[in-house]
């Protein structure tokens, strides 16, 4: 009886086993078959080359170069140790140690540092760990020659971004690096993978989809150590498209030299086409830091530097425009017919609003509009401002494209800010007073604009109300890009712009004009200076924005020296920059 029970129990057990086999092999069979295929078939992606970036003369700004990384496969270290007869734990470490000693010797670094990078990077036995990046070709050859001794070592060839001109156009170009989580979520369906190298900021990011090559790859069958057993398929990686920019790298170089590490920005734009010739933000950085094998601290320093070298001040920096804003005031006053060109105000050197005193730079005496612009008389524009009222000023400022993105083809552009009653109320900062209107009339207070916005404003003035679309792209591959030739036009009478232009021209030509220092022989130059006060007791911002008609092209420009003192400093820089441009036949 008991044996019968045992028999039933044993057969029951085997029925269970048979059911288990049926479940595993038939019901889940397809699933496990797929897993087994995934197990052995691995796709090794090969990133395509990125397209080159060139300036408008064809000079290469961003290129690719071959680089060599050293990788170590953890499993292979162990197996070399195991094959040396005994399998005690000690040997394993010995295998690793001699390897790290060897690598340290070849790469001229401390073997301990190599071992440290290895142990930090180790994730799974079959995933190779990168222990050294971007080594020299000679070092790569030495390591390859010794692979028979250290089968766990692998030298991986890859293409690395390289910026031959260094700082030259850093902000404009951006840089490349590992894809960020946010970028990956946005662009999953476009074939980006976790390992993708993508553009960060600048043209590299904005035109990433054109620049990035199509990733190819090899499909290989691997064994459990991830070693290749045979090649199953191969698809060649495709090179991305080259992009030609509107930038002039010589102009960039000159601007960089002249600004000489002072914080600030230079924008030079062809005012007829909107092509940006020069876009310099200072202090700058070398984008090669982000792609090379520099110590990681270097990148950290860039971001922790209080002068924010990575910030692109031309489009991301929002500053009070100071007296440059008087251009908007003049247009608004004339268009609303609150003033005519001959409207005259007396400047006693200050303006008294009730008990508050608003100062002017000098005692200008009687000023008409042209004089007010040329001499940058605050009192003149206090009067204009009071006649207009803050809402009208805000409306005209926006109409002229201030306080909103220019939609240049670069990422992370800032809006700036045009203050007003509504904005005050929305932000809960209290009411708007007449004093605020006075401040705003001379581009002070909360108002903030980007240097690019001011450069575009100057183009608008020079072109009778045409708002050009600034852009940095000229051609993708051999195909010219035309989509930015679109122009907006503000419907303001030409004569109004003509009057303003006279004022801007007078600022340069008039002996007492604020920008007289820029009166370069042979160049038609007009502009408006600005010395914007800043809070916190820091030095003023120095502005000079305007337009110039040269032999070769007409430009609109804006120069800003952040906390650079008097606008005179910006004018000096403009003079030197334009002289150089003329010498090089750029202007």
């Amino acid at each position, binding site marked *: 009886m*008991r*044996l019968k*029970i*045992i*028999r039933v129990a*044993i*057969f029951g*057990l*085997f029925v*269970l*086993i*048979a059911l*288990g*086999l*049926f479940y*595993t*092999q*038939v019901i*889940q*069979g*397809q*699933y*496990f*078959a797929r*897993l*087994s*295929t995934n*197990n*052995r078939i691995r796709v090794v992606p090969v990133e395509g080359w990125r397209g080159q970036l060139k300036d408008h003369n064809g000079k290469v700004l961003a290129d690719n170069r071959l680089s060599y990384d050293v990788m170590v496969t953890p499993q292979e270290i162990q197996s070399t140790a195991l094959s040396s007869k005994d399998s005690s734990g000690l040997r394993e470490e010995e295998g690793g140690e001699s390897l790290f000693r060897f690598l340290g010797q070849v790469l001229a670094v401390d073997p301990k540092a190599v071992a440290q990078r290895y142990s930090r990077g180790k994730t*799974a*036995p079959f995933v190779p760990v990168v222990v050294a990046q971007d080594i020299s070709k000679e070092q790569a050859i030495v390591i390859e020659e010794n692979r028979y001794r250290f089968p766990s070592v692998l030298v991986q060839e890859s293409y690395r971004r390289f910026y031959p001109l260094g700082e030259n156009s850093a902000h404009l170009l951006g840089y490349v690096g590992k894809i960020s989580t946010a970028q990956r979520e946005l662009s999953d369906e476009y074939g980006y993978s976790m390992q993708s190298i993508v553009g960060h900021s600048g043209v590299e990011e904005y035109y990433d989809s054109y620049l990035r090559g199509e990733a190819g790859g090899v499909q290989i*069958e*691997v*064994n*459990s*150590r991830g070693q290749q*057993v045979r090649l199953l398929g191969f698809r060649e990686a495709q090179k991305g498209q080259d992009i030609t920019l509107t930038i002039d790298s010589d102009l960039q170089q000159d601007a960089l030299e002249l600004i000489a590490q002072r914080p600030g920005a230079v924008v030079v734009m062809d005012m007829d086409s909107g092509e940006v010739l020069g876009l310099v933000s200072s202090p700058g950085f070398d984008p090669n830091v982000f792609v090379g094998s520099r110590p990681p601290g270097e990148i950290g320093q860039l971001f922790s530097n209080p002068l924010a070298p990575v910030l692109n001040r031309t489009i991301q920096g929002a500053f009070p425009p100071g007296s440059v804003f008087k251009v908007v005031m003049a247009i608004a006053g004339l268009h609303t017919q609150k003033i005519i060109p001959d409207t005259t105000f007396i400047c006693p050197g200050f303006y008294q609003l009730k008990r508050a005193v608003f100062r002017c730079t000098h005692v200008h005496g009687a000023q008409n509009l042209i004089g007010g612009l040329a001499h940058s008389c605050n009192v003149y524009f206090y009067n204009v401002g009071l006649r207009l009222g803050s809402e009208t000023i805000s409306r005209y400022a926006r109409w002229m494209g201030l306080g909103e993105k220019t939609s240049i083809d670069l990422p992370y552009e800032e809006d700036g800010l045009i203050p007003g009653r509504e904005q005050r109320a929305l932000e809960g900062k209290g009411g708007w007073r007449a004093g605020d209107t006075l401040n705003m009339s001379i581009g002070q207070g909360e108002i903030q604009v980007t240097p690019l916005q001011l450069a575009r404003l100057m183009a608008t003035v020079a072109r009778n109300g045409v708002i050009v679309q600034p852009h940095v792209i000229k051609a993708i591959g051999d195909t010219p890009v035309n989509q930015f030739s679109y122009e907006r036009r503000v419907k303001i009478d030409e004569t109004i712009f003509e009057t303003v232009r006279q004022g801007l021209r007078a600022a340069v030509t008039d002996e007492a004009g604020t920008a007289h220092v820029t009166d370069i022989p042979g160049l038609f130059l007009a502009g408006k200076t600005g010395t914007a006060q800043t809070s916190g007791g820091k030095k003023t911002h120095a502005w000079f924005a305007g337009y110039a008609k040269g032999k070769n092209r007409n430009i609109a420009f804006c120069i800003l020296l952040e906390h650079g003192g008097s606008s005179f400093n910006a004018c000096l820089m403009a003079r030197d920059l334009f002289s150089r441009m003329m010498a090089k036949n750029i202007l």
Partner: protein
Amino acid sequence: MQRDIEKKIWLYTILIIGFGLVALYSASFENVRVSQQVFYDQLVFAGLGLSVMYVISRVDYRHFYDTAYIFYALNILLLILVLYGGRDALGARRWIEIGGINFQPSELTKFLVILMLARYFSKRRPMFLFDLTEKIEVILLEIVFPFALAGISMYLIFKQPDLGTAILLFGIFVIMLFAGRLKMRYIGGFLALVMIMIPFGWHFLKPYQKDRLLVFLNPNIDPLGAGYTVIQSKIAVGSGKIFGKGWLAGTQNQLNFLPERHTDFIFSVIGEEWGLAGALLLVFFYVQLINCGLEIAEHMKDKFGMLAATGVVAMLALQAAINIGMVIGLFPVVGITLPFVSYGRTSFLVFALMLGFLINISRRRTVF
């Protein structure tokens, strides 16, 4: 009738061994991880094992009964020797070297425990000079004392550490208690007591044994460590589907995704390359062999033979079922070989010994 059973045992044993050799050939085929030597080794031991089986089936049945205690005692000495002078492999001490041959005494224990218990339960037990009430006497004589005897080797094997074999021996002990017609309430009480002790036993487990038990519950908690083997073996068996990938064509096997595939996990090679069809065929062979053993046990007139036959059959059945079960993730990975199929020389010989013994008792119906 007896002749038929003997023939069937030979037939199914040889079929199983053959199946195992085919699988082992594939597991070691042109491979750096598993040397082809493993296959030839097993081939030699197949011949040796079958010879042992034949010899054992022909010796005097009486000797098994007479030497049961002595051999068991000697085996315990060997187990002690292993603990203090044995050879390490894979973090455990299971082997000793005798005359240049590596030998795993715990495998032999499996057979010797069966013989020892069979003799003990067949009523010829040492006398106790205590004056006790009947109940206590039953508990002491039928459970406590035999458990203490078998427990010595279980403990020594557990210390190696080899949890799987220790548990297996415990299972055999319970089955033999049951087959020995001990009253159910004693067995029930004993098992209940053991159940209560299990949580305390947890603390005596080695970390890797705890890992294995936890990983059994969810292999994915450690896919590259303890769970790796189970995941890979399940993938292997499952991907074989109904008819398998074909001999020497199992990718999990040939590309080294299966660790320990020539020993404890040999069944994953069979499942992958021969599919459900092959796997069920092998299971069928085992069931047939077990059936023969049970028939012999049922027809035994003397209790020693019946108990010993039951023990041998139970050992065969448990090892086969647990081994296959652990390969497909039904049971925890406990390091138990698949009889006659896994590579393992001592294991192979001991099963040959046990089946030889089974034939032996089938030839002679009574001892005395």
